[in-house]
C-alpha cells in the first residue's frame, strides 16, 4: 500500500506543482524576475521527479502482480512473462496516459537543462507552456482515469494480456509513437514563447530544429512499424486501412514534414514566418487530437481503446488551445512579416512552398475524411463514413506532386536556378524516368497511377543519385580521396542537405513499394485439398498438407504450401490457426514468403477431416521496398540530426574573457 500511496500522492502533488510552475514561469517571464522563473523551472523539474516516482511505483506493482490495484489486475495475470508485465505499463488507458506524461516531463527536464545558457528570454514561457500540457494530463490522471485505484476485493488472478498483443511489435509500437507525438510539444512551446515575447526571428527556429527532427523521426518510424506489424499479424494482407487511429498518427507527421521544410526557408530567407507558426500549432493540436480520437469513442475504429467518458475534456482543451494560439498569432501578425519575396518558380523556395501546399492539402483531406462521420451525424442525423476509396482517390493524385518534388527539389538552387542550368540538371533524370515508363508499358503493366508513381519515383531516385555523384566529384577535385570516402565526406560536411537527400531517396523507394503493392496486388480465395495447386498471378501455390502443433501457450494447426515461379520452387509458406489457452482465444498467423520482388501471403481456415482447407492468397509486388525505404529514411534522418560543428552554439550567450 505504500507504493499505492506514493504513486497516488506523487500524481496529486505533481498536479499542484505543475500549476505552480505555470504561474511562476509566466509571471517571472513577464516581470523579468529571476527568482520567479527559477521557481518555475525548479517546480517543473520537481514535477518530473514526481512523475518518474509514480511511474516506477506502477511498474513495480505490475511486476510483483499486486492485484489489489485495479490496473494491475486488469492487465497482468499469473502466467504473464516479466517482459509483458513491464509493457503492461502502457498497455491500458491509464498507463498509456502516464507514459505520455512521463515522456513530456522528461522532455521538459531536458529542455531546461539544454537551455541554461541560451534562449534566456524564451525559456520561462517554454517551461510554462510545457507545464500547461503536463497539467492537462495530470488532471486526467487525478480525476478522470486514475491508475492507482484499488479493487474492493482483490482477485486471485488477473485478466492478463491478450495473446494478440503479446508480441514485441505491439509492445514497442506505443512508446515509439509517443516518443514522436510528445516530442512535438517542445517546438510548439518554443513557438508560443516566441509569440509571447515577440522574439520571432530565427532563434526559436534554430533551437527546435533537432527536437522537431527527433519527434518526426519517431512518429514516422512508429507509423511504419505499425504498418509492418499489422501486415504480419492481422491476416488481411494489408498494412494500412485509413482507420481513424492510423490517420490520427499520420496527420501530425504530414504537417511535421511540411514544418521541417518550411523552417529552412525561414532560416534562409526570412519568409513563411506566419506559415511556420501556424504549422507547428496545427501539429500540436493534431497530436492532442490524435490522443483524443483513440480514447473518446467518437469515431468507431477497430483500434480504439475502451470508450471513455472523458473525451469531452480533450475537446475542451483542444478548443481552448486552438483559440488562444490563434489569438497570439493574430496579435503578433505584424512581426511575422516576410523579409523577402519569392523570386522564381524554379527555386527551392517554390519547391518547398508547393511541398507545403501538398502536405497540408493531404492533411486536410484526411482530417475531413476521418471526421466526416461526426460531422454528418451532427448535420444530417445519419452517420456516414468514408472508406479507403475516398482516401485513395483524393490522396493519390496529390501525392504524385510529392513524388515529383522528391527529385525536383534537390535539383534546384536557392532563390533562383538559372534557366540555362535547369535543362542540364533535369535532362538525365527525366530520360531515365521516361525509360522506366516505357519498360513498364512494354511489359503491359497498365494502371495509370501505378505507372505514373513508379516513373516519378525513378526520376527522383535518379536525380538524387546524380546529386551525390556530382558532389562527390567536387570533393574529389579538392581532396583527391577515393570516391566512396568523398561521398562520406560530402555527406558529413553537408549533413542537412545530403541527409535530406537520403531521406528523399528512402521516401521514393517507399513510394515505389506502396504503388506496386497497391496497384498490382493479386488476391485469390480458393478451397484446396492436399496436393492440389493453384495459380495466383504468376505464382503457383501447391498445398502440401496440415500438421498439429502444441506449445506452452497455444495449440495450432499449421498448413504448408510450396511456392513456385515458372516451375522453380522459390520457397514455402506456413500459415497457422492457433488457439491460445489463457485467455482462450483463436488467432490466425499468416504465412509469408518475403522476397525482393514480391511477397507471397497466405491464410487459411476451416480445415476438414480430409485436410482440405479454405485459402486466401495474395501476391504483393515490391512490398518489402516499403520497409527498405523506411530504413533508408531512418538513416537519412539520423544524418540530419547529427551535430554540425558550426551550428553547435545557437543562441548562446558569448562573453569575452575579461
Amino acid at each position, binding site marked *: *500500500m*505504500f507504493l499505492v*500511496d*506514493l504513486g497516488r*500522492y506523487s500524481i496529486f*502533488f505533481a498536479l499542484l*506543482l505543475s500549476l*505552480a510552475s505555470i504561474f511562476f514561469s509566466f509571471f517571472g517571464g513577464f516581470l*523579468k524576475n*529571476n*527568482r520567479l*522563473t*527559477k*521557481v518555475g523551472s*525548479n*517546480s517543473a*523539474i*520537481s514535477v518530473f*521527479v*514526481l512523475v518518474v*516516482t509514480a511511474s516506477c511505483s506502477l511498474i513495480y506493482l505490475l511486476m510483483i502482480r499486486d492485484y489489489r490495484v485495479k490496473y494491475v489486475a486488469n492487465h497482468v495475470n499469473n502466467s504473464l512473462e516479466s517482459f509483458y508485465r513491464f509493457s503492461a505499463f502502457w498497455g491500458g488507458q491509464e498507463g498509456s496516459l502516464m507514459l505520455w506524461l512521463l515522456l513530456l516531463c522528461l522532455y521538459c527536464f531536458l529542455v531546461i537543462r539544454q537551455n*541554461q*545558457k541560451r534562449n*534566456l*528570454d524564451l525559456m520561462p514561457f517554454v517551461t510554462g507552456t510545457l507545464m500547461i500540457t503536463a497539467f492537462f494530463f495530470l488532471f486526467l490522471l487525478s480525476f478522470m482515469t486514475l491508475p492507482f485505484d484499488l479493487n474492493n476485493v482483490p482477485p486471485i488472478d488477473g485478466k492478463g494480456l491478450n495473446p494478440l498483443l503479446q508480441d514485441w511489435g505491439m509492445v514497442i509500437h506505443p512508446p515509439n509513437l509517443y516518443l514522436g507525438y510528445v516530442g512535438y510539444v517542445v517546438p510548439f512551446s518554443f513557438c508560443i514563447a516566441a509569440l509571447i515575447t515577440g522574439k520571432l*526571428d*530565427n532563434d526559436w527556429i534554430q533551437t527546435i530544429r533537432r527536437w522537431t527532427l527527433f519527434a518526426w523521426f519517431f512518429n514516422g518510424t512508429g507509423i511504419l512499424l505499425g504498418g509492418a506489424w499489422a501486415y504480419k499479424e492481422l491476416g488481411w494482407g494489408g498494412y494500412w486501412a485509413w482507420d481513424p487511429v492510423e490517420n490520427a498518427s499520420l496527420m501530425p507527421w504530414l504537417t511535421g514534414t511540411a514544418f521541417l521544410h518550411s523552417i529552412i526557408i525561414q*532560416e*534562409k530567407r526570412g519568409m513563411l514566418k506566419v506559415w511556420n507558426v501556424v504549422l507547428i500549432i496545427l501539429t500540436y493540436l493534431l497530436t492532442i487530437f490524435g490522443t483524443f480520437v483513440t480514447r473518446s469513442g467518437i469515431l468507431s475504429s477497430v483500434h480504439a481503446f475502451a470508450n471513455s467518458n472523458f473525451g469531452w475534456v480533450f475537446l475542451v482543451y483542444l478548443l481552448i488551445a486552438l483559440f488562444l494560439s490563434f489569438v497570439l498569432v493574430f496579435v503578433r501578425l505584424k512581426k511575422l512579416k516576410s523579409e523577402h519575396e519569392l523570386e522564381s518558380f524554379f527555386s527551392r523556395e517554390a519547391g518547398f512552398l508547393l511541398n507545403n501546399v501538398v502536405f497540408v492539402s493531404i492533411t486536410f483531406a484526411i482530417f475531413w475524411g476521418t471526421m466526416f462521420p461526426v460531422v454528418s451525424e451532427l448535420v444530417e442525423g445519419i452517420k456516414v463514413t468514408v472508406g479507403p476509396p475516398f482516401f485513395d482517390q483524393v490522396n493519390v493524385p496529390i501525392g504524385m506532386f510529392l513524388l515529383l518534388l522528391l527529385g525536383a527539389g534537390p*535539383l*534546384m*538552387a*536557392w*532563390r*533562383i*536556378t*538559372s534557366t*540555362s*542550368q535547369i535543362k*542540364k*540538371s533535369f535532362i538525365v533524370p527525366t530520360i531515365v524516368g521516361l525509360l522506366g515508363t516505357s519498360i513498364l508499358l512494354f511489359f503491359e503493366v497498365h494502371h495509370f497511377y501505378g505507372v505514373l508513381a513508379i516513373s516519378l519515383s525513378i526520376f527522383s531516385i535518379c536525380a538524387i543519385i546524380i546529386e551525390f555523384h*556530382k*558532389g562527390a566529384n*567536387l570533393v574529389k577535385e579538392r*581532396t583527391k580521396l577515393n570516391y566512396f570516402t568523398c561521398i562520406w565526406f560530402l555527406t558529413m*560536411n*553537408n549533413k542537412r*542537405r545530403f541527409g535530406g537527400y537520403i531521406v528523399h531517396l528512402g521516401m521514393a523507394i517507399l513510394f515505389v513499394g506502396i504503388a506496386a503493392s497497391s496497384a498490382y496486388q493479386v488476391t485469390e480465395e480458393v478451397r484446396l485439398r492436399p496436393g492440389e495447386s493453384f495459380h495466383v498471378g504468376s505464382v503457383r501455390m501447391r498445398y502440401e498438407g496440415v500438421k498439429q502443433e502444441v506449445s506452452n501457450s497455444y495449440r495450432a494447426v499449421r498448413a504448408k504450401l510450396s511456392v513456385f515461379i515458372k516451375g522453380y520452387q522459390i520457397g514455402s509458406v506456413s500459415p497457422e490457426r492457433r488457439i491460445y489457452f489463457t485467455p482462450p482465444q483463436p488467432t490466425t498467423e499468416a504465412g509469408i514468403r518475403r522476397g525482393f520482388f514480391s511477397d507471397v501471403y497466405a491464410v487459411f481456415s476451416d480445415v476438414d477431416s480430409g485436410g482440405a482447407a479454405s485459402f486466401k492468397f495474395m501476391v504483393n509486388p515490391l512490398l518489402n521496398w516499403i520497409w527498405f525505404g523506411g530504413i533508408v529514411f531512418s538513416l537519412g534522418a539520423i544524418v540530419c540530426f547529427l551535430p554540425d*560543428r*558550426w*551550428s553547435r*552554439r*545557437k*543562441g*548562446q*550567450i*558569448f*562573453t*569575452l*574573457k575579461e
Partner: protein
Amino acid sequence: MEFFSLFILSLFFLMVFVFAFWPLVRVPVNLFDMNIVSEKNKKISRLMFERENLYKNILEVRFDRAMKKLSNEDYSKLLNPLNQKALNVLRRLEALGVKEGDVAFGENQVNKNSNIENDVRSEIEEEILRYRNNNKISAQENAIQENLSDKEITSVETTFYCTTCGNSFGTEDKFCSNCGSKIK
C-alpha cells in the same frame, strides 16, 4: 509500519516542495541569468550568431555554383549582398572588441574546426576582403541596417569605422584617433 511509511512519504514530498520553492529564499547567482548578462555581451552574441549564419549561406551559394546550378551572373547577384552583410558584421564585431580566436566565457574553444573547414572559412573571409577592396568601401559609409532586428544594436549601427584599425570615430574627425591614418 503505518507511521513509518507516512513519515517517509511526508519527508519525500517535503524535499520536493522545498527544492521547487527554494529560489524564493535564495537565488543562485548565475552569470547567465536573464537580466544579468550585459548588453554588450548580448550584442556580441547576436553578431557572432549572425556571422555563422552568413557564412553558412555563403557556403550554400558557392556549393550551388560548384554543382553548376547557377550561372555566373546569378552567382554574383546572390553572393555580393551576402559578402556585404558579412563585412558589416565583421566590422561591428571588431568595433566591439572581438577578434578572431576570442574565446567565450566558460567554453573551451569556439572553433574546433577541421583543416578543411578552416581552409573554407579563410577562403570565405578572403573573398569578403576582396569584395571590400573591389568596391572601395570608404570609411564614411553607413552600416546597412539589415538582418538585425534587435533594437539594442541600433546604437552601434550609425557609428563610423576606420578602415585600417576598425576604431570608431565621429563625423568631424579627419584623422583616425587610434592609428592615425587619414580618413577618406
